[in-house]
């Protein structure tokens, strides 16, 4: 039987309601960097929100990337472990190989409108089975014989990003 190989994407949204220390640091520093970098595309100081900048200055799309420099240090502190998502033992188990940082909304005069997200992408996983609303997965690179698996629940902001079959 063919193995189903999947990658997962967890989208971690961070906004002004953040309470955890890591989330709050990301929120503060990404907002400050946004205010600095946005000035590049707002020389006339005509725009106030990220949406307005995007609509009127096509190059403002680069702000996702430019602001990401403010959060690189925090990503490194994660040691390539995806936060928040737990297996059924209550442990973090997903690694990430790739990420994408995005600004969802922001406002140069209203910090509470600032909202960003990390999209974390896992390496390939083998999807063995589905038990109620739990998925049973294992890391792809395992030898013959017994395979260690993780059971985790389907939940909001967690998506199967890609799938392919492998004989």
């Amino acid at each position, binding site marked *: 039987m063919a193995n189903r190989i999947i990658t997962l994407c967890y989208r*971690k*949204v*961070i*906004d002004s309601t953040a309470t955890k*220390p890591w989330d709050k*640091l990301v929120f503060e*520093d990404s907002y*400050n*960097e946004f*205010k*600095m970098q946005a*000035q*590049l595309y707002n*020389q006339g*100081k*005509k*725009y*106030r*929100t*990220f949406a307005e900048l995007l609509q009127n200055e096509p190059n403002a799309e*680069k702000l*996702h*990337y430019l602001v990401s*420099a*403010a959060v*690189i*240090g*925090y*990503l*490194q*502190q994660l*040691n*390539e472990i995806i936060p*928040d*998502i*737990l297996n*059924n*033992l*209550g*442990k973090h188990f997903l690694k*990430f*190989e*790739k*990420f*994408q*940082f995005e600004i*969802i*909304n*922001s*406002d140069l*005069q209203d910090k509470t*409108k600032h*909202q960003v997200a990390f*999209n974390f*992408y896992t390496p390939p996983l083998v999807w063995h089975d589905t038990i109620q609303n739990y998925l049973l997965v294992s890391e792809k690179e395992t030898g013959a014989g017994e395979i260690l698996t993780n059971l*985790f*629940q389907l*939940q*909001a*902001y967690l998506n199967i990003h890609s799938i392919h079959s492998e004989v």
Partner: protein
Amino acid sequence: MERKHFLKSLLLGAFTTPVLLSACNNDADTVSPSEDTSGTGTVTNPGSSSSSCTVAPTETEGPFPTKAPASYVRSDITDGRTGYKMTAKLTIGNTNNSCAGLANAIVDIWHCDADGNYSEYGGSGMQSTNLQSVHFLRGRQVTDANGLVTFTSIFPGWYSGRATHIHVHIYNASGKSLKVTQIAFPEGTGSALSLVNGYNKGMSGYTYNSRDNVFSDDSAGVQIATVTGNTTDEFDLAIKLNVAA
């Protein structure tokens, strides 16, 4: 060419006067937004702590996050990009203070690599977790008491339609934009530009300063840096940029 002659021609070719760049953003107030950003359809309640019936985290807490500066904050911005080493010394002066050095100004620079490419997102926008070189050839420094910042980088390459240049964004200590500008390079025989000769590309199709859409109006050459040095050791770029602070 004789070294002495080369150095002399560099000095002659690269004579610059201090730049006078004054801010002129006198536009009145900002336009108030006509709509709420929350109208873009994004979720306002991130779901990691939703009411789903999952187990709570049961792990030792940590690692504890620590405050981390933006990855721009460094003096050496090379990040493994190959090219002729270049040290760039930018002095920021304050036109409201007889162009004396402006301390504690934040200075961002960025430029392209030897092939003419900038660090930025590719097609999918995904970055690998090898985060070391995501923002290559981009850097941020804060000026010292004399208004000086120093970056270690490589001599920039070029791309179609533009003369070789370095982007500069100068902020005051609290992050308010004071000036966005670009630095041009001296041209002609014996200049660093002709010695580097466009790296692997050569100079065929190069846009010289006089035809560049940013520098062509700079007939006085105030945006042109002084560039000394050689291809064996390094090039040294120096320029003074004055802003109203």
